[in-house]
């Protein structure tokens, strides 16, 4: 469904991505793991059209996304939930939920979909008329995920869904993401800083550090976490069996 080939992204002189390649197949849950500043968020933003790659290709079902506007990529069925809970703070919860539905062709189905999403997130129903800026951090995270689901994406990109949330709420968020995947045939690409939770849910994992993919593999094969740890912290690469180590071109 999604194929990224050797993309490079720079912010001014800072090189954030130095040749990232990855693929996501339809229906898969793929997770990017890596420390802060590794390039996880930049990778997702590049897919969603928020930052331009200076080199390389991003292909969605064969179509090259170079130069395509973010709103067009969203209309092609890719929805990004960026890091940091970008709710529209002065808009009500209901308005936040509706923003992403205006581009949909099946306008008649929207009301029922909002109902369904509110059933998944009863907290949001209670706060439906409140300005989104007044919600708690956990409620805001639920809102941005609910809002993204309402765009009816085929590919959902979620940047650090668990950042700053209580473990119980994180579990809830993952439950809903998994349920959405079951019901709607959603494909998921998720960023996380830590691997222990995502290992249970993901099909495949990429470890990213310093703008490079350090390791890729099936979640089941990496379940003991040792290889991930080595790739993540950047020592003992030689010992990791299936580490897909690249030379630092810089």
């Amino acid at each position: 469904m999604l194929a990224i080939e050797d993309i490079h992204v720079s912010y001014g002189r800072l090189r954030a991505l130095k040749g990232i390649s990855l693929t996501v197949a339809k229906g898969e849950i793929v997770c990017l793991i890596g420390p802060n500043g590794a390039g996880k968020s930049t990778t997702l933003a590049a897919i969603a059209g928020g930052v331009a790659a200076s080199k390389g290709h991003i292909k969605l079902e064969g179509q090259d996304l170079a130069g395509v506007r973010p709103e067009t990529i969203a209309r092609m069925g890719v929805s990004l939930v960026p890091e940091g809970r970008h709710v529209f703070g002065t808009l009500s919860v209901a308005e936040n939920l509706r923003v992403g539905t205006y581009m949909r062709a099946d306008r008649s189905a929207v009301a029922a979909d909002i109902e369904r999403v509110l059933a998944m997130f009863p907290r949001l129903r209670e706060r439906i008329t409140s300005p989104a800026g007044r919600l708690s951090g956990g409620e805001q995270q639920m809102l941005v995920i609910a809002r993204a689901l309402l765009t009816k994406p085929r590919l959902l990109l979620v940047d650090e869904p668990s950042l700053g949330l209580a473990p119980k709420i994180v579990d809830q968020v993952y439950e809903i993401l998994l349920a959405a995947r079951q019901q709607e045939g959603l494909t998921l690409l998720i960023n996380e800083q830590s691997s222990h939770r995502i290992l249970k849910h993901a099909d495949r994992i990429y470890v990213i550090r310093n703008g490079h993919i350090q390791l890729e593999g099936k979640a089941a094969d990496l379940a003991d976490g040792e290889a991930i740890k080595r790739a993540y912290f950047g020592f003992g690469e030689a010992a990791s069996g299936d580490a897909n180590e690249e030379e630092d071109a810089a």
Partner: protein
Amino acid sequence: MIGFLQNLADALSLGSLYALAALGVGLLFGILRLVNFAHGDFISIGAYALIVPSFEVTAQLFIGTWNWALMIPTVTLIVVIFALISDALVFRPLRRANAPTLMIASFAVSYVIQNGILMVYGARPKAANLWSGLANPIMLGDLRIPMLQLVTIGVTLALMAALTLFLKRTPYGVMMRAAAEDFRMAQYLGVRGNFVIGLAFAISGILATAVSLLYLSQTGTLGPQMGVPLALFAFVATVIGGMGSLLGAVVGGFLVGFVVIMLQAYLPEDLRVFRDAFAFAFVILILLFRPSGIVPTRALIERV
């Protein structure tokens, strides 16, 4: 007491014009982070669109003679087209530019429009009579209020109500508010960036047209720089109201109108020529005590 009420009516009417102009400025600032100094020139275009192009001192009304039901939409359309053209030619290529660059570009647009007017209509101010029938006063007890002031206040309130309804109740309004708050996030949700910005320019043009018509019928004169002081006071109104807040722009507009009129009325005669200096001193005072304006928004901080 009657004197004060009379002044209050003047203040409301002048404040209405400032509030309308400030809304036009504030709307674009909200969406684009553009401080549009060319807004005053959109106002000038609306006034000049009414008259026959010539260098004569007495302006001959052209579109201005039409029935208002035809004239208002036509003039509005002309101003909106100019606003959209300035977006397409100047601001769209600068989408990734920072706010100071956008502001300087708006100065350039302003000069181009002013010089365009100079070329077509000449530099001399012109007299024009628009809706002279509205000058007749209405007596409310002992209070004489020119019909035009009531129309000005009424039109302003109606436009504000319409804009509020648009922003709160329609999909496009919700999209505009979302884009004003977090432009990139709105795009990630499929909101078309250029469309929303174009919409903001168009609405800003509609508001500018209302100011042109009301201002021209009050003053009866046109000049190539007629919109500049209006834009300046509108800008001041958005600053003291709180940049990025439309409610703030309206409050600021009325406040500036109120202060200007009351200074005019109650300053000692010798000091009246310095009215604007006192008005701006008052603005500085407000900003000393409320640096982010009367209705502060977090929009500015969130953008960083």
